[in-house]
């Protein structure tokens, strides 16, 4: 006699399929995001650091924190934005905690800076390490993010 598949198993399979596709299609913490933006900071200019944070704040203010997904990718000299002694640290904390802005730190740059400094620089607690900043940007663009370099 052929055994039938129980209904609960079908439901479980369906749930996994939906959850899995959501995980690849959109960030879990911004399920209602209608705009997806990646901001690039690769310049050591202090003004550029302020500018990229201003742009992120303005995007959040305009669309609302749930409707826009913003990720700031720092590499090269711009990685200093995510050092834990950066003067913008409290602002970065607020953007991450209150508005869900994500911060990605390039580990290629970290490696190079570690050699130059003689020790590994400490990163802001909100910074998420990524193997290569520029690759992270390419991946995000492939996922539909719009790249902006203020």
């Amino acid at each position, binding site marked *: 006699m052929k055994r039938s598949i129980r209904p609960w198993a079908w439901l479980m399979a369906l749930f996994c399929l939906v959850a899995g596709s959501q995980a690849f299609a959109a960030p879990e913490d911004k399920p209602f995001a209608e705009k997806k933006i990646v901001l690039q900071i690769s310049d*050591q*200019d*202090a003004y550029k*650091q*302020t500018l990229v944070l201003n742009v992120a704040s303005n995007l959040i203010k305009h669309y609302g924190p749930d409707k826009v997904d913003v990720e700031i990718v720092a590499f090269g*000299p711009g990685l*200093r*934005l995510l*050092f834990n*002694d*950066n*003067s*913008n*640290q*409290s602002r970065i904390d607020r953007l991450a905690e209150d508005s869900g802005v994500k911060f990605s730190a390039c580990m290629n740059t970290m490696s190079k*800076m570690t050699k*130059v*400094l003689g020790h590994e*620089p400490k990163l802001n607690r909100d910074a998420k390490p990524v193997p290569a900043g520029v690759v992270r940007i390419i991946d995000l663009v492939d996922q539909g993010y719009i790249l902006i370099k203020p």
Partner: protein
Amino acid sequence: MQKTLLTVAATLLAGLSVSAHATNWLQLQGTEPGGSTDRFKLWGFIQPQFNYTSNSKLPVGGWSGQNAVFNQIGPDLKSSSTFQLRRARIGVRGANFPLDSKTNYFLLIEAGQNGITELSDSAVAATDASVTLNHIPYARIRLGQFKTPGSEEGLQAIHVFNYINFTQVTDNLLLERFFDGDGSNIQDSNRPNGSVGAFRDIGVQVFDWFNWLGWEHSYAAMVGNGNGINRMDNNNDKDYYLYWASERVFGNSKGARRECWKLFGWYINGKRTLQFVNGVAGEQDFDRKRWGFGTTFRKGKMRAAAEYIDADGMIFAGTDGGAVPGSRNNADTATSSFNISPDGKANGYYVDIGYKILPKLELDLRYDYLDRVKNIDAQEREFNNWTIGAQWFFNKKTRMLVNYEIRDAKAPNFPSSAGPNQILNEVDNRVTVQLLAIY
């Protein structure tokens, strides 16, 4: 008991944190923002101005009919109506190795016409040259030549000063002139032997700031030569400086004009060496002590400041007969000189308020009082000055200042008809107009 103490200490430390965005003079002038400072930031400011008094002459005394020193414009003291490039400064500051925010530097050069350049016979002179090390928590170290921790009027950045001229109490007691003698040699003008101190010294300072119980607290302790700027010490005694400030910061405002209420106190102790005192040649050392306390407030359209200053030793005491130093008396028997009262005491204070009546226009009013050489009847002089001011802000970095100073002085231990009071009655009011551009 030990456990209780540890608990108390832990509680205190838990409430103590380094401010991430706070600013104060120690921070603004001695450090750079972490992680965002360039290797090289060029900056400076220019202050052209016009000065005027009505040039009343000396009415009595050995120099009767000659120019009164207090009605001439310094540092040249040759005119009572003159254009002047009061300050022209250019400097660089930053983190010499941007990846490492822990080392900062500050260099500023003066090319204006003032007590720094004119009194040192130098067209260009360094006002600041320092390096700050930010490696030790709660103990940053600054070495070199820089503003000493002390009076608010001296410590503040001059390009955000709300008036053109310093109060008389600050000018006489804190803006130090360095002399070889006390002025008792009647054949010598006793001109300063170098630049004015410019509220600066060469030495080492330990300082930092932290937030605790909702206030930002900052401290500084410094040891310096006590011999002015751009030269080494002239004796083996050092000047010691202590400073404390506690500020209640309103909102997230930042920078030199942040909104806050500040309380501060300071103390300076040093020695000065003179080569000619009481008509006798010979090296002698004298104590020079200064201390004071005060408050500042800024919120919205309103700002205010007040400070008390006390001085013991090495009191600047005017000139002979009120004449311009170097001028011969009418009998051609003596030369007017700058005078110092090595054992004199003095005190004074100022109160200052400002209000922005328009977004681009601030009106200012200041009163300052000085009781000079108050412990020696014959030398005691009292000064009461009112300054009425206006500032027009063309933009954040350009403004025009207009000051009218109502100046009054008297010798309290002499009758009003006596010579010293007749001379002091001729102190003119002063008008000054200045344009300030920061770049």
